[in-house]
């Protein structure tokens, strides 16, 4: 009797895994909150389901949102983003002063903050925390965000002095970055690896249990510095990859909050008794990126023609089911210095055809549009854009690749056009504008190879300008010029979608996507 056929399933297992890897979960998240008011009730366990789970609690190196948004409940930075996403407000810091030459920041710390271990937070902890983040720049971490920081010095137990290499206006916003969260000096005597298995911080919750890829539970921090908070006894994040199962868990009361329900059933889900849906303003922007190293995309007329040919409202209606707004700018409404009056290209077929006529390919051309496979939103966008570009003589072939393969192709410049996007991590436009328009930012202008000296100068001037009005003007010009150059064809701004049981109160997500669970409570 032959048994060789028994090995066939082995091959099929590997093959089916590879095939199914095309079904990538893709989720963004942003603020919410029912604004219910009322008297918060203490107690209760909150269960949040998400498509993908945390992978690490080391905020200095981890890049995925599930990890970041959970670890932020344990570790907090000196400054945090305001609820509207437009400002960095003192959090563990009490106040700060900037020297006249804009090179020195003296930051006073709150004196009532303790780690969950009970030890008081001191300036030595703060210096250690910022320094450990900076060091990760050489190993793939977020340390590059501190590139402007020359030195962090302890002045006294509750004061630090941050010295900058050059005048750098986004410095406070950089310190609000999650990677600059405060941890105990020298990790409390542990190695970094040991510490981040169960980190200790000043946040409202403490690490409890973690079954990787399954469930992560934090318990209430009884030493939290905000008196009376948090209200919840615990928070659990469950990983539920399937979007339908996530919704069903909410309907079956197995979950309190569900991240990123699909837009197609968002409204109907919100009409279900006992369930509320919230679409929070975000910093998310979706766009078409052009590879200017490939012909004919170095030609501004081609890029403009495409940008004019896209019906953004149709995309919002068909793909987001109305939950979004057409994009007019490089910046999103949740980002500081966004200008709603900037005239980015919008649907105008006559202008599109006129631009094509002026271009190097007046009779049209064939090209490829790279998208992430398994992402229904991007697939729908691509199909609509494909049909719209046919109107101006552009024949588009859609090429889906799994997310990692697609990203590798984009990074290598191996694409014609692609659908990408961005969300902010700090309450300052600089993180995105430098990434997107300044080749010195290290990312080849969002991997488009776009290079406009005027725009680069505007961006660098804005980095050093301290007057908010002047800065606003610089960013206004930058938004207008990048729109005119159409180095990206902006599509739409989408909110962060959440669905929750109506027993959940005061759940709010900021435009950066993080949430303050210390304010959340449950009613019976």
């Amino acid at each position, binding site marked *: *009797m032959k*048994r060789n*056929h*028994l*090995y*066939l*399933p*082995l*091959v*099929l*297992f*590997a093959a*089916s*895994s*590879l095939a*199914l*890897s095309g079904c*990538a979960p893709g989720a963004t998240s942003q603020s919410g909150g029912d604004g219910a008011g009322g008297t918060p009730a203490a107690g209760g366990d909150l269960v949040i*389901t998400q498509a*993908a789970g945390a*992978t*690490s609690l*080391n905020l200095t190196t981890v*890049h*995925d949102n599930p990890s970041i948004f959970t670890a932020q409940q344990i570790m907090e930075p000196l400054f945090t983003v305001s609820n509207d996403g437009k400002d960095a407000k003192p959090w563990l810091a009490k106040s700060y002063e900037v020297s006249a030459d804009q090179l020195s920041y003296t930051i006073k710390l709150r004196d009532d903050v303790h780690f969950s271990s009970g030890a008081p937070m001191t300036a030595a902890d703060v210096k250690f925390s910022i320094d450990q983040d900076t060091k990760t*720049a050489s*190993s*793939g*971490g977020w340390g*590059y965000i501190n590139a402007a920081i020359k030195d962090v010095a302890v002045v006294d137990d509750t004061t630090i002095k941050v010295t900058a290499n050059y005048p750098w206006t986004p410095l406070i916003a950089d310190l609000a970055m999650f990677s600059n969260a405060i941890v105990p000096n020298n990790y409390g005597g542990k190695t970094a690896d040991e510490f981040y298995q169960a980190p200790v911080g000043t946040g409202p919750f403490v690490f409890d249990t973690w*079954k*990787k*890829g*399954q469930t992560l539970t934090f318990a209430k921090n009884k030493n939290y510095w905000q008196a009376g908070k948090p209200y919840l006894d615990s928070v659990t994040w*469950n*990983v*539920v*990859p*399937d979007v*339908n*199962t996530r919704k*069903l*868990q909410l*309907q*079956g009361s*197995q979950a309190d909050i569900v991240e990123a329900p699909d837009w197609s059933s968002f409204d109907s889900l919100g009409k279900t008794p006992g369930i509320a849906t919230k679409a929070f303003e975000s910093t998310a922007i979706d766009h078409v990126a052009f590879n200017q190293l490939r012909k004919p995309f170095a030609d501004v007329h081609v890029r403009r023609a495409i940008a004019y040919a896209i019906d953004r409202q149709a995309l919002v209606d068909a793909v987001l089911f109305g939950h979004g707004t057409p994009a007019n700018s490089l910046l999103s409404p949740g980002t500081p210095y966004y200008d709603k009056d900037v005239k980015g290209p919008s649907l105008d077929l006559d202008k599109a055809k006129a631009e094509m006529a002026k271009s190097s390919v007046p009779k049209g051309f064939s090209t490829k549009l790279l998208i992430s496979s398994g992402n229904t939103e991007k697939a729908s966008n691509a199909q609509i854009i494909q049909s719209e570009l046919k109107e101006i003589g552009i024949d588009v072939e859609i090429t889906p*690749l*799994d997310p*990692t*393969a*697609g*990203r*590798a*192709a984009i*990074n290598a410049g191996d694409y014609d056009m692609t659908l*990408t996007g961005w969300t902010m*991590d700090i309450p300052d436009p600089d993180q995105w504008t430098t*990434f997107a328009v300044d080749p010195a930012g*290290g*990312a080849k202008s969002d991997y488009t190879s776009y290079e406009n000296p005027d725009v680069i100068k505007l961006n660098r001037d804005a980095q050093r300008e301290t007057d908010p009005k002047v800065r606003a003007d610089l960013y206004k010009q930058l938004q207008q010029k990048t729109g005119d150059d159409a180095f990206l064809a902006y599509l739409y701004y989408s909110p962060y979608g959440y669905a929750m049981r109506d027993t959940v109160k005061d759940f709010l997500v900021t435009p950066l996507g993080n949430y303050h669970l210390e304010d959340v409570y449950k009613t019976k």
Partner: protein
Amino acid sequence: MLQRLSFIPVRLIQAIPVVFGVTLVVFLMAHLLPGDPATAILGDKATPATIAALRTQLGLDQPIWNQYGLFVSHLFQGDLGTSFTYQRPVVEIVLAAIPVTLSLVAYSLTLALIIAIPLAAIAATAPNRGRDIVVRIYTLIGQGMPQFWVGIMLILILAVNLRLFPVGGYGNTALEHLYYLFLPALTLGIALTPTIIRSLRSSTIDVLGSEYVATARSKGSAGVTLFRHHVLRNAAIPTVSVIGVTMGYLVGGSIVIEKVFAIPGLGSLMLNSIFTRDFPTIQAVTLFVGLFVVGVGILTDLTYTLLDPRVNLTGSVRS
């Protein structure tokens, strides 16, 4: 008896190159995929400099054969490496997922047999008559229903509407595991029953028509006694082979079911590892699945030998 089991060591030795071959093929396939772990981990906001730094830290700048050699040499020391994604020993992560998937597979098989054996017996005792036709229609429908659809339907009816079972998850205690895994196991079990029923029905009809069953009947044996002593054991032999093959497919099929029911088993782990190009975890899962399939093959042969004394797998001819 012992001589009849002497095929086991031979099978085990034969399995070694098979398992290593599979790990090599999967290693090469995974590395041939465009995009590496550093790209997956760092995402859309990475610069070439940060990607290069992380690649160096993860050892991905080494030649591919060095990486495979390192994997094999560590394997002989019982070390499957460190997960790129979780930065934890892979053994720890895979060992947590193995019992989940094995429980699901065993549970599914048990439910499938509980459903299939009576139905096959009912059908086989009255071929081409009403109850047989009903069972055959069930097998047709059962084969036609996609697993994910059956899973969603079971969740809607039994979990959301009737609130009898949880909507996915795995639970914390052994009893909770049984409770949480019931719906996914039933989903997989339902998918498995048509194949078992068809095989068992067909072989049961053959056995019922055999001379030794006629002899047993003439001696007054009938009903359940006849089935237990004379029919089931003989009719089960082809079905054992079918189940042996199906076990491997069940592990593969668990990828979809684990996703629908949010079960943290090997299927979910493999899928996520491929997304993130977590090579050490992909290798470890493949290695385990290889060992599992080989083990099931040997167990199937062993069951054959025990069920039917005439079966001889040692290679010698039995007179």
